[in-house]
């Protein structure tokens, strides 16, 4: 019996979120008193796989396959290894891949599934997990009653615990797959910090007034090594690309630090940011609802405040 964790890489490298997932799997396996298996699909070098040992990985299964598999094939590989390793719980990240594949894995394994789980289970027998519902307005405890469980983990909710371990890498035999869907072309967002993985997010709303004003926002993001984001009207207006839209109908983010600049704090926007550890709001209206969600607030005009803020962080970063 075991816990199976499916992990992703980008160009053969793991991100912080991967280590978080592995650490989670390792602690979950300990709670359940079972072993841990990790599945990595794609071309990842031994050394990179061995780096997972820092967080408790011991047995890593590598399928050096082309990653552009379709959802059905992914699900069949993951559920196949789950069956082979008698997995009690299958864990994936609550990202786009997890959302696409975990439900299929659950059906294949006749497992109950809960997505976007917050942290470790509250209880393991019965198996009870926490998650947010009603787009962040409610916290629920859910019992999964099936013998096998599939969960996707919300980013930044579990933390990382070091637990050095030796890693054995085992190569899985190549699979023959007849994809049902074909990728015609891929457009990669280049160079910048990805919103889904960022520790710091700098986000602008309609209070930024015009797309030209984004230059200073990008400067602040640059100084902080942050990803940029925006409210829905900003992306609807075409001021910023759609992938930056945060909120109930956009992306849900959970960074350590979120800057809401000229964002009023509508409930649909808060739905996307309420899991952020710390929220800083800048708004000229002291009554703006964003201040009820923020930890730190600055009341003032962004045209004036934003450049000064960037200067202040530059000073801090340079150590004077």
């Amino acid at each position, binding site marked *: 019996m075991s816990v199976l964790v499916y992990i992703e890489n*980008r160009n053969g490298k793991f991100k912080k979120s991967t280590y978080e997932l592995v650490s989670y799997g390792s602690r979950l396996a300990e709670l359940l008193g079972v072993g841990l298996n990790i599945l990595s699909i794609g071309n990842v070098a031994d050394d990179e796989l061995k780096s997972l040992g820092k967080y408790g990985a011991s047995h890593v299964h590598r399928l050096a396959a082309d990653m552009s598999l*379709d*959802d059905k094939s992914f699900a069949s590989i993951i559920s196949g290894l789950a069956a082979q390793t008698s997995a009690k719980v299958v864990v994936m990240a*609550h990202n*786009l891949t997890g*959302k*696409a594949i*975990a*439900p*299929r894995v*659950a*059906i294949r394994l006749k*497992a*109950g599934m809960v*997505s976007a789980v917050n942290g470790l289970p509250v209880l393991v027998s019965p198996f009870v997990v926490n*998650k*947010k*519902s*009603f*787009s962040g*307005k409610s916290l*629920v*405890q859910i*019992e*999964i009653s099936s013998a096998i469980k599939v969960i996707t983990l919300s980013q930044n909710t579990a933390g990382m615990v070091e637990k050095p371990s030796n890693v054995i890498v085992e190569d899985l035999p190549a699979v023959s797959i007849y994809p*049902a*869907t074909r990728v*015609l*072309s*891929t*457009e990669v967002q280049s160079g910048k910090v*990805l919103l*889904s993985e960022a*520790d710091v997010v700098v986000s602008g709303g309609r209070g930024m007034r015009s797309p030209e004003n984004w230059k200073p926002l990008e400067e602040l993001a640059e100084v*902080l090594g942050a990803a940029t984001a925006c409210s829905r009207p900003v992306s*609807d207006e075409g001021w910023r690309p759609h*992938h930056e*839209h945060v909120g*109930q*109908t956009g992306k849900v983010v959970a960074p*350590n*630090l979120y800057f809401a600049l000229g964002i009023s704090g509508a409930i*649909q926007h808060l739905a996307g940011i*309420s899991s952020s*550890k*710390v929220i800083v709001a800048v708004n000229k209206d002291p009554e703006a609802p964003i201040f*009820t*969600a*923020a*930890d*730190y*607030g*600055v*009341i*003032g005009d962004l045209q004036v*405040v934003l450049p*000064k*803020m960037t200067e*202040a*962080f530059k000073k801090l970063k340079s150590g004077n």
Partner: protein
Amino acid sequence: MNILVCISNVPDTTTRIKYTTDQKEVDYSGVQWIINPWDELALTRAIELKEANPALIQKITAITVGKADAEPTLRKALACGADDAIRVDASGVDSFYTASQLTNAIKDESFDLILCGIESSDFNGAAVGGMLAELLDWPSVSAVSSVNIENESVKVTREIDGGKQLMETGTPSVLIVQKGIALNPRIPSMRGIMTARTKQLKVVPAVEAAAQSHILTFAAPPQKSACKIIDAENLDELARLLHTEARVI
């Protein structure tokens, strides 16, 4: 080609969520019900596709798993432009239960494309679309932000972490859609509302399906402590607090 759009009936997104006193259920009194925002966009796109190519797309069906009180939401889908509707007479217990009901309800129908939203705004399950695809043994593409149909080939754009991909899938397929799929949701016209009354809304009974998870309790998220206001003239103080007090930079 026939398109099925799966519609989840959810409380309006601005609703304050209240619970029964034992915190075991949601108190739905006074709630305004709407079509789940993504499902509304999926329906809108299906209607746009049919309008653009009526020879290719014969019928759009809206389906929901819900009790009779979900019917006004289905009627709205009909008023927007769906041709007919199906209600499976059951309240969803978990994603597996809902997906099983949907699978059973359409087993004798012939759909070429099923559109689901990426998640419902009430329970945020993000599961029904993928489960339905697996139960039907159909291909699926998730996080779809655009869809076009050329003959029998379905071209979609999907978001991936850090980019996007243009994909091709055949029929039948399940498309799990998100932002971008349509710009603004279709609003029913007066004429649409009138004709919706005459359109067919079929009610089918639920089948046995064992839910595999259930909610034990609800709680309000922890209250945030009051916001600390920093003087706009002293932003060094903000940088200092984020560094030494909040320890996030």
